[in-house]
């Protein structure tokens, strides 16, 4: 039996060695790019704004953000450690040259780009698409294709690149942009406000149930380039929309910065369901390379009886710094946060949520599952705050951590603050490892150890996986397995 164990250990080592190969989205598309000059200055901001043919107010908004950003300091309170980022040693705009005029139809898109998305499993030809999912594809700094626009138009739903929305729906964008995540919110959000290049804009009109799932697929391709996308979703009174985003990037030894801002506004009776499968390149098994993912996501339940639900599956990135939050402003509004964060090798994740209860009878629910393997560090950080006027507010939080291996860490940092006596907050957290008897039970029934780990971890995450739309859930389950390969020994 000792021999069997040795064999298995050797296999595990092999699996670890191969792990770098397991990231199947690590390829690079060879395509000619147009870039802004390297570095960050007012000129960079002007360059981006001009590229997008933006109105003056937008440029001024960006410049205001840039000036503010210069006075800000990078935050250091999260449990992530990384080499100081040189903000001058990066490109802030990179777009495929072939896309300098936004293609009017899919036939005009550079075949190399179409091929890239095909390889990523996101076919852009509408006839090939899964029924019922519209896609906005963002390639480095620009949106290259948006599908099903016509069909959505019929329902009155606006689904387009934000750069287009700034031009075509200026008043709407101006009314809401920066109202959930103010320009001055935090270092990374302010940087994004100055240099964001593209992203998705969604507006669902009053009483409309969006006829299909909307999604954005973000791809970083260019070297030494940061991606700064900005997404703004507005669900008008009584409307409903489900939105998904996915992300990948090539394998590179250098770290690349991704600093996005997502703002959601739900008006009276509206509901927004926002799902993310984040699979940026995580770096190799020695911790080299990978995306630095500093993201500000916040939803404002502005109207009574509105609801915002975040679901995230975070398996990629060298560093994840992300707290999708809900401001429960309207009475009877509901906020949800379902999260799976998996870190392996040298990955670091510091993620969680903020639920700010302002309105009466507001409810929030937080389910967080953190899985840490290899030498990774995984932190849940969350705030539940009940303000004095939030009569009868309710929160339930369940935070579970699973450790695989003796050299990783799992941390839980919840802040629970209540200033209303009729409110009720409950928080539970556990930390455990995959029990040896569970693993043995599975292997005794013939399931190989790695598959058994994936099975057990998927079970551990089930409550969150169930929140994902069907097509995504299957992908996410597979991803859970892939992310943990090489983690048992």
């Amino acid at each position: 039996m000792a021999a069997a164990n040795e064999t298995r250990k050797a296999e595990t080592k092999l699996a670890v060695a191969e792990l770098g190969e397991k990231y199947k989205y690590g390829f690079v598309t060879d395509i000619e790019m147009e870039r802004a000059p390297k570095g960050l200055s007012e000129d960079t901001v002007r360059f981006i704004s001009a590229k997008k043919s933006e109105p003056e107010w937008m440029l001024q908004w960006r410049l205001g953000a840039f000036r503010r950003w210069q006075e800000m300091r990078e935050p250091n309170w999260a449990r992530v450690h990384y080499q100081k980022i040189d903000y001058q040693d990066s490109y802030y705009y990179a777009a495929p040259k072939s896309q300098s005029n936004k293609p009017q139809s899919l036939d005009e898109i550079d075949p190399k780009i179409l091929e890239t998305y095909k390889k990523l499993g996101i076919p852009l030809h509408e006839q090939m698409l899964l029924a019922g999912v519209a896609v906005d594809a963002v390639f480095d700094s620009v949106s290259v294709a948006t599908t099903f626009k016509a069909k959505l138009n019929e329902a009155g739903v606006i689904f387009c690149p934000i750069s287009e929305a700034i031009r075509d729906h200026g008043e709407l964008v101006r009314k809401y942009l920066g109202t959930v995540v103010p320009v001055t919110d935090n270092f990374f959000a302010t940087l994004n406000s100055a240099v964001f290049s593209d992203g998705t804009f969604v507006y669902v009109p009053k009483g409309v149930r969006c006829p299909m799932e909307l999604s954005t697929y973000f791809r970083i391709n260019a070297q030494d380039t940061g991606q700064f996308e900005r997404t703004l979703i507005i669900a008008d009174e009584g409307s409903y929309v489900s939105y998904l985003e996915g992300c990948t990037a090539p394998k590179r030894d250098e770290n690349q910065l991704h600093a996005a801002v997502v703002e959601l506004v739900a008006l009276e009776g509206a509901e927004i369901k926002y799902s993310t499968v984040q699979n940026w390149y995580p770096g190799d098994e020695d911790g080299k390379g990978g995306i630095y993912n500093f993201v500000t996501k916040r939803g404002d339940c502005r109207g009574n009886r509105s609801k915002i639900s975040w679901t995230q599956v975070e398996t990629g990135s060298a560093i994840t710094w992300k707290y999708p939050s809900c401001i429960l402003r309207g009475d009877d509004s509901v906020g949800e946060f379902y999260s799976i964060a998996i870190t392996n090798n040298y990955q670091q994740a510091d993620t969680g949520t903020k639920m700010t209860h302002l309105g009466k009878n507001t409810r929030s629910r937080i389910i967080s599952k953190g899985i840490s393997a290899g030498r990774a560090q995984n932190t849940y950080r969350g705030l539940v705050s009940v303000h004095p006027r939030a009569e009868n507010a309710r929160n339930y939080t369940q935070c579970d951590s699973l450790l695989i291996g003796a050299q990783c860490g799992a941390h839980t940092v919840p802040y629970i603050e209540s200033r209303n006596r009729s409110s009720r907050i409950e928080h539970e957290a556990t930390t455990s490892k995959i029990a040896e008897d569970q693993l043995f039970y599975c292997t005794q029934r013939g399931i190989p150890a790695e598959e058994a780990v994936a099975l057990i971890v998927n079970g551990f995450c089930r409550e969150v996986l169930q929140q994902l739309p069907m097509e995504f859930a299957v992908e996410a389950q597979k991803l859970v397995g892939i992310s943990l390969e090489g983690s048992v020994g």
Partner: protein
Amino acid sequence: MLEIKNLHVAVGGQEILKGLTLSIADGEVHAIMGPNGSGKSTLSYVLAGREGYEITQGSVLYRGQDLTTMAPEERAAQGVFLAMQYPVEIPGVTTMTFLKTALNAQRRARGEKEVDAVGVLKLVREKAKALNVPEEMLKRALNVGFSGGEKKRLEILQAAVFQPSLAILDETDSGLDIDALKLVAQGVNALRAPDRAMLVITHYQRLLNYIVPDRVHVLSAGRIIKEGGKELALELEARGYAQIIKDAA
């Protein structure tokens, strides 16, 4: 089917099995009886390949092959099944998902074609009916919140689904009332076949009223101290372990 020769096994440096010899032919049902701490569960874990059980001497041949070098999942794929005394709970993984994953992993390892979801469902339903395992149980997370009887029934259901060549039943009777015991025994008896051997490990004789063994072995302090036919179980029940051990010493 199974040839165990002079098996010595240590757990945490302490020797538990001290020269156990046992052989089971195809189609036979053997019972191992013994008092608590005699090494019954150790034997079952060693056969299934659990980590932490160190073989210091002796050999185990299964269908002529050395069993001891195989990983647990290889043994399972080769037809070794252990119905555990304490089946493990796995939250979030439904019983049906588990059955499908395990069945297909075994088939894959044997180079057989995998069975699709519909096929597995059909197979499981058919077996479940015979064991009175309700459909609803298959949808629940594996063993989570199951009663003792439900857990044991599920173990036998798995044996029926996987169709092992060697089934080891570790204290399958513990924690069962008489009705549940009969049901489980029926399930086990249905599995008797000319190409299948079974090793029934138990503390009490009562299970053997329902699963009648071909041979009975008495295990004490890591060794087989007495062997005989099915009547040996009755003798044990009548005279008690202490007396038999004393006689054998």
